[in-house]
């Protein structure tokens, strides 16, 4: 197992764009012996800049685990995960990778602005700068009015939009969303997906969404399937006409 960064800082190699994240023969097994559970089995894939991928599969198929591997939150037990275009490991590089979690992921004791600003502060930004960028992110998503609210005071959809704003504020190049609509009703889920797609488009970032909601998958460019920890890549779906402003 190896988790490495690239030797070169260049985003191209032989005029071919470098992938944001590259997984080669990656496996992740929890436990050992008879108790061992293989969450991801020998997955090989790359995510390129601007790609919008839906990672679909049944519950327990390994979607979240693969996403965590892409985010650098888990280490593979076999194989390598690298981030050639991001200049190193994403841990400690929140500008490069942003994660939207399935459940409540806001810090309960911080208000919305502080939650959105937190990754920036952790990355060394001055407090006032971080707050300003957080306000901008909230403005982008049209939720400025929620700035002073506490997570407990938000609805599920509002909380997910704040989570998206938190990712947006960090201006990552790769956005990973783990079942972002899993706990939302259809209307709210549609709103959150709209917000996410717009944010990614504004950033020009790549997007990988783990979901078992076909309606979400249909709105993305590529669909990767997972079953029993195995990843099945499929040819990109037919190109859909893009709405104005979806891509910068």
């Amino acid at each position, binding site marked *: 197992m190896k988790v490495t960064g690239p030797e070169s800082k260049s985003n191209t190699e032989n005029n071919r764009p470098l992938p944001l994240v590259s997984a080669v023969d990656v496996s992740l097994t929890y436990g050992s012996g008879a108790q061992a559970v293989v969450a991801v089995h020998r997955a090989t894939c790359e995510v390129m800049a601007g790609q919008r991928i839906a990672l679909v599969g049944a519950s327990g198929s390994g979607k979240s685990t693969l996403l965590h591997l892409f985010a650098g939150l888990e280490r593979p037990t076999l194989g390598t995960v690298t981030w050639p275009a991001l200049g190193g490991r994403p841990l400690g590089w929140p500008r490069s990778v942003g994660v939207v979690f399935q459940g409540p992921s806001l810090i309960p004791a*911080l208000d919305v602005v502080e939650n959105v600003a937190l990754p920036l502060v952790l990355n060394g930004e*001055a*407090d006032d700068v971080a707050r300003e960028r957080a306000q901008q992110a909230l403005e982008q998503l049209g939720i400025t009015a929620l700035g002073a609210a506490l997570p407990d005071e938000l609805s599920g959809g509002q909380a997910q939009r704040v989570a998206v704003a938190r990712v947006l504020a960090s201006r990552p190049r790769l956005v990973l969303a783990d079942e972002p609509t899993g706990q939302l009703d259809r209307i709210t889920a549609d709103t959150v997906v709209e917000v996410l797609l717009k944010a990614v488009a504004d950033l020009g970032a790549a997007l990988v969404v783990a979901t078992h909601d076909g309606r979400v998958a249909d709105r993305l460019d590529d669909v990767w399937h997972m079953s029993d920890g195995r990843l099945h890549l499929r040819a990109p779906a037919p190109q859909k006409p893009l709405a104005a402003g979806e891509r910068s």
Partner: protein
Amino acid sequence: MTGLWLAGLVRNRSGRLVMTAAGIALAVALLATLGSFLATSQATMTARVVRSVPVAWQVEVQPPGDPATVLAAVQAAADITVAVPVGVSRTTGFAATTGVADQRTTQQTGPGVILGMPDGYGEDFPGEIRLLAGAATGVLIAQQTAANLHVVPGDNVEVQLPGGHSGNISIDGVVDLPQANSLFQKVGAGPGAQPVAPPDNVILLPRAQFDNLTAPALALDPSAVVTQIHAGRAAPASPDPAVAFTQVTAAARNLEVTLAGAALVGDNLGASLDAARSDSRYAQILFLFLAGPGVVLATVLTVVVAGAGSDRRRREQALLRTRGLRPAQVIGLAAVEAGAVGIAGAALGLAAAAVIGRVAFGSASLGASPLSAVAWAAAAALTGLAVAALAVLLPTVRDLRSTSVMAARSTGRGARLPLWARLGVDIVVLAISALVFWSVARTKYTLVLAPEGVPTISVNYWAFLGPILLWLGSAMLLWRVCELLLRRGVGPIRSLIRPIAGPLSATSVASMSRRRITLARSVVLLALAVSFAVSTATFTATYRQQAEADALLTNGADVTVTQAAPTATDGTGSLTAIPGVRAVEPLQHRFAYVGADLQDLYGVRPSTIVDATALADAYFSGGTARELMAQLAANPDSVLVSQETITDFQLSPGDLINLRLQDATTQEYIEVPFHVVGVGKEFPTAPSDSFLIANADYIASATGNPAIGTYLIDTGGRNQAAVADQVRSVLGQDVTVTDITQARSHVGSSLTSVDLGGLSRLELGFAVVIAAAAGGLVLALDLAERRRTFALTRVLGATSRQLRGLVSSETAVVTVFGLVGGAVAGWALSRMLVAVLNGVFDPPPSTIAVPWAYLGITTAVIAAAVALASVVGGRNLNRPAVEELREL
């Protein structure tokens, strides 16, 4: 179902169960150990009473009763060890002519009393008569009477009896009557009767001589002589003063009934046991009061520990409800859990109390009698069960009725202040506390005399209300201050924690501000524990300091040598040579007249006495001990007088005062001029009322008598008894040698004779454990509850160092606020405790003793507990965030 549930709890929630049971055990052990201590202290009180009352009963024969019949009846009564007849007769006065050649004068006293003592009375009732000078047998004159008549052993005194009869006697010895109050009591006085002051003039005669002397008066008036049977009793069977009192008084009544009016029983032992019974009741309340906060704190901690699993418990309850269990069944399962931890905690606590009692007090019993042992154990166990119900059952019932999981998790920003805070209950409580304190401090406690002359404490139970309200009020006020600081004082706190949290200080302080209710609770819990430790430690240290000061005052020094016949030879050198002796201070003891008032006069060596003895500044007013002794040295005619003398004679510093002292050559009282320089409130070996202190050399030159009566020996506080033995072997039997270890058991009321050492160690031990638990446990639980927050922060890019900064800054704020708040509250509480419980201190303390070493250790233990909790919590912070999130 119940068994399955219980087994599941034991298997899967063993940590929570063990911690809750441990908290319950702590409360139970503290309460039960208190029972053990009280058992020991009650036994001490009873033993002391029995020791301090040589004549248990004074049975006065009533006319026409026959003394011989009464004596036989008393001797036949159960538990009587000795019974002897004593004659009592009033006199119209005493007269003596003293002096030499043409300077002879005659002194006449007012009415007095003569006693006809049987042979061997002194041996039968040790402690009733204390020899001061001359022979121990024959005609003995009381010290004050001897001074009034200017007589010494060998002089003659005329005894004047009613009817104009009189007789001459030759004095053999001068004695002190320590039990004069009870010896001259009015036998048969009603319960509300005022004590009778003992007569000023008393002479003790051998019985035969007494009979001869009083025969003419008796012939005229049969009531001129009264016979009392003085009886000693075996120690009561019960160590409990209340039970012993019942036994002894019942026996006394039984004797009166048996004698059918032929005699009345003056029940000295019963009266003393009655006083001890009251003291014992007071002691129970006092010690419960001192330990009460510990029990409350242990309870609160247990509730907090049990509450740490509240989320899980709510989920489990919700699951049980969805599986079809009715609320009553869910409550039933919670009751089973509460019962299990309650019983386990109570059993553990009682076992711990028995072990602690055995080690600390030498007895595993939890009460003075089997009944009280069972009562204490039952009370402690019931308290344990109540704590369990409070910690486990009550939250279950409350949750079933109202709360949702999300509501319980709510951070509660903008939550209104609690009702008590909005109503200002804390301010009201503190105001009432101040009011109670003011009213109690105004009156203070006093030592009063029962009709039989037994010292007892006049107790004002309202006094306890002041410290209780102060403790509660300061806790509430501290909560309010913390809440306010964390709400409004964000800027200053941010600056304070910047060195710890660095760039995250704003985030940290914002988080703290939102969690201010939880943090204020932690601060208050820690502060309460700290204030409990501070006030308990300070109170017991002050108690010890004063008990030692009392013993030192009573005995005069570590070892005191009193010469029956004072000599001019300075024995300082031979005493200093004895191993273990650090310093020896000679002391003159004379009597001097201030006007018509005879007072003790102490002649001191002002250049050495301050360093050689434990003279405290509190013994004097008008200057420190050293300053006043320097004045005595610089101006040898200086004198320190009592406040009473200052008031009675309208004296001021610098005033001339002529004292009358006995001249060594003529034996006459001559006037010697002194100048008042200050007030002596206490002095080693001095009585508690009026006395004088002057320069020994000046007294010697003015009276021609340099005789030294007493030597105060300082052993550095060690080996007093051994040094006293050495002194006895060196100086022989002509001197009386006492050491402080004897004095410790004879001072004050029965309550102040209780050695609080064991209780102090016990309470201080518990206080440390509780304070450490309050600091460490609360932090550990807080960190555990916030694992999800820390995991999320880590996922968002926080480094381990940043996370540690977040945790440490919050820990620092809680610890510093808690320690400072606790120290301030503890200080205030200590001062109030010492002030309102002034009556248990003898003498009252001028300064509070602060046990810095103990407080330092407590602070260190709290810091260590907090650090340990931080380290253990910090280990979790280093775990992979996703792994942590997956588990939560």
